[in-house]
């Protein structure tokens, strides 16, 4: 086995099968959701006519579908690399997949059969006040879908926790807390274990928050006289939602730690600043969510101040050690710029640039003007489309790299198209936000339409690139010999 595909990455038949299911399903769903996104953007740009109720159904499916799928695909990145260091059970990985698919079915049925269109954030009391557009049952089905997905992730995280505890003693040692203040730092401690320890802690707490608020909303749906405190519900929803989507980048980034060194020929080792960064982010990810509530003047003042300050600092430590590490790793290394390496570097750019608008919007005085404008989709599409998705794609290309190294069309056409289209697409959102075009509006004023049209063109380029990637990867995965992944030797 080559250094690019070491022996300890070999997949058994069963593992290869489950991983293929993850990869192919994630790609298929991402393409469909992107098409939903394009339809929305073109509708805003008056190029096509979409009735508002359908627009909001598409928006709900797109939000929930994308967030869920990126979470699922990132968990595949974490699973693939973490299992090299600890003993994970493929059955739990498969259970996550099955529960996810059941949840996704419930969500799709709720949206497209039941007509639920209250947004992926199911903010109370909207799901139960549809003014007759959808029934309480469909809102409830949507929430049940989330519960199923949550249980799936929980099972996967518990398996990862168990494995880390078995090998390292406890999660603190997995995170490397014992080396924060001194001691003989073990430089061979894998960054993948540090990142995974962080993710299982924060996302289990996120899932707990979700489990509480979802069931309370379900109770309220059928016992409406029991009014919930809307602010508390919103706090819990954003705690859970923010932690979940944030955790996706912290799972996906493992691909950068693992893959870049293969091409640069330099090890990525842990250092004390690296461990500090992950430890601090573990705490900050949990308390940063109030930046979603800066408009809620009834929130306790201290929480809003905390939301602003932590917004500045939350993502920064891990981002700095990762971006600095990536640059140091490739600088004058004579790196071979294969597709996974390029995607890993692209993700550093997307992450870096994507958090700038977020930090600006996390400032209370700016937020009062920019919140609920398209500036916000501008920020998160930036870091999800150009940050997280490239990390996930890096793993996918890595899987087929041994058998079908991507070059030619993917390198010369796909990647530039993806980057260019992505920049146009997110740039249009940010620019529209800058002129105060509101987010989540099915119909736009004539002044905003040009932004929507430019955004649509960017989206088309992105979709063409993703179709190219998806075809290449899926053919690579399913192609002979055998249909397990490229290096599934057994």
């Amino acid at each position, binding site marked *: 086995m080559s250094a690019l595909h070491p022996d300890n990455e070999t997949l058994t038949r069963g593992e290869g099968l489950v991983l293929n299911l993850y990869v192919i399903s994630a790609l298929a769903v991402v393409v469909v959701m992107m098409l939903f996104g394009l339809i929305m953007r073109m509708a805003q740009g008056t190029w096509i006519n979409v009735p508002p109720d359908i627009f909001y159904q598409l928006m709900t499916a797109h939000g929930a579908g994308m967030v869920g799928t990126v979470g699922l695909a990132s968990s595949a990145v974490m699973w693939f690399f973490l299992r090299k260091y600890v003993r994970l059970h493929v059955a739990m990985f498969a259970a996550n997949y099955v529960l996810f698919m059941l949840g996704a079915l419930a969500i799709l049925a709720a949206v497209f059969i039941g007509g639920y269109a209250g947004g992926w954030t199911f903010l109370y009391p909207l799901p139960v006040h549809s003014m007759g557009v959808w029934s309480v049952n469909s809102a409830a089905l949507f929430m049940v879908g989330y519960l199923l997905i949550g249980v799936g992730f929980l099972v996967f995280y518990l398996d990862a926790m168990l494995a880390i505890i078995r090998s390292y003693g406890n999660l603190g040692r997995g995170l490397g807390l014992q080396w924060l203040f001194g001691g003989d730092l073990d430089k061979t401690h894998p960054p993948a274990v540090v990142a995974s320890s962080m993710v299982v802690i924060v996302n289990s707490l996120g899932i707990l928050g979700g489990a509480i608020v979802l*069931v309370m909303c379900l109770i309220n749906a059928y016992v409406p006289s029991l009014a919930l405190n809307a602010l508390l519900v919103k706090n819990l929803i954003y705690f859970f939602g923010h932690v979940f989507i944030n955790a996706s980048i912290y799972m996906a980034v493992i691909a950068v730690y693992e893959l870049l060194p293969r091409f640069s020929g330099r090890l990525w080792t842990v250092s004390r600043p690296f461990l500090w960064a992950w430890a601090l982010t573990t705490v900050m990810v949990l308390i940063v969510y109030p930046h979603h509530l800066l408009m809620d003047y009834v929130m306790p003042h201290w929480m809003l101040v905390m939301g602003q300050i932590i917004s500045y600092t939350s993502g920064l430590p891990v981002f700095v050690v990762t971006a600095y590490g990536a640059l140091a790793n490739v600088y004058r290394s004579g790196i071979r710029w294969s597709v996974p390496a390029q995607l890993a570097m692209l993700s550093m750019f997307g992450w870096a640039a994507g958090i700038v608008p977020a930090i600006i919007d996390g400032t209370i005085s700016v937020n009062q003007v920019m919140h609920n404008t398209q500036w916000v989709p501008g920020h998160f599409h930036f870091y999800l489309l150009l940050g997280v998705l490239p990390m996930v794609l890096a793993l996918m290309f890595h899987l087929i790299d041994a058998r079908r190294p991507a070059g030619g069309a993917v390198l010369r056409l796909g990647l530039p198209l993806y980057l260019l289209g992505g920049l146009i697409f997110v740039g249009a959102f940010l620019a529209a936000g800058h002129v105060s075009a509101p987010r989540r509006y099915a119909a736009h004023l004539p002044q905003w339409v040009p932004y929507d049209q430019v955004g649509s063109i960017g989206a088309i380029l992105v979709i063409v690139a993703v179709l190219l990637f998806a075809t290449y990867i899926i053919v690579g995965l399913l192609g002979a010999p055998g249909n397990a992944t490229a290096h599934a030797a057994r």
Partner: protein
Amino acid sequence: MSRARRACSIGAAALLLLGLRMPPVKGALEATMTAQMLLLMPLLFVAGALLRAALPARIVPRSAAWDYRGITGLVLASVASVFWLLPRLLDSAVSQPAVDAARYVSIPLLIGLPFSVSWPRASFIVRGVFLLECVATLFRMGWLYLIWPHRLCNNYLLDDQQRLGQYLVLIGLAACIAIAAKLLWGRFDALAEAPPRASAQH
């Protein structure tokens, strides 16, 4: 288990159950909703857990066949607990002898006993899911009691109901912190088996 320990457990369970039936004790523990839910019921649960020692030696290993990883027992305990989370039953248990008797029988036998048999069999993952659901339930019940605008029980007042809500939320928080601390810094000697499969190498 030694005979002496067995006799001790059975004796303790019997004493506890008898003690909890004594009018002054029962009266005090039923005087408030908070005491009933946070003292009387947990003590009945403990009595049931102690009864595990009374089971004939052959039964526990035999039951493993239909209690895969403790899942059956924990599901039974969960389903039975759901009934005793209903305020209506808490209320009736004070005023209706039949419900009162059902409580004294079912909490030990359908919750405490199955839990104590199944918990040791449960894997880390089963325990994790069970614990997360328990903590979530503490928060949900606490929240419900805190916001319910009316008295739910004839026997108890609104302030009692809301105090119970506060305590449930606090217990949920404490459980959450304790579990997180255990996972981060605790010892898991029983689990430790495999050293790291590999260190960072690419």
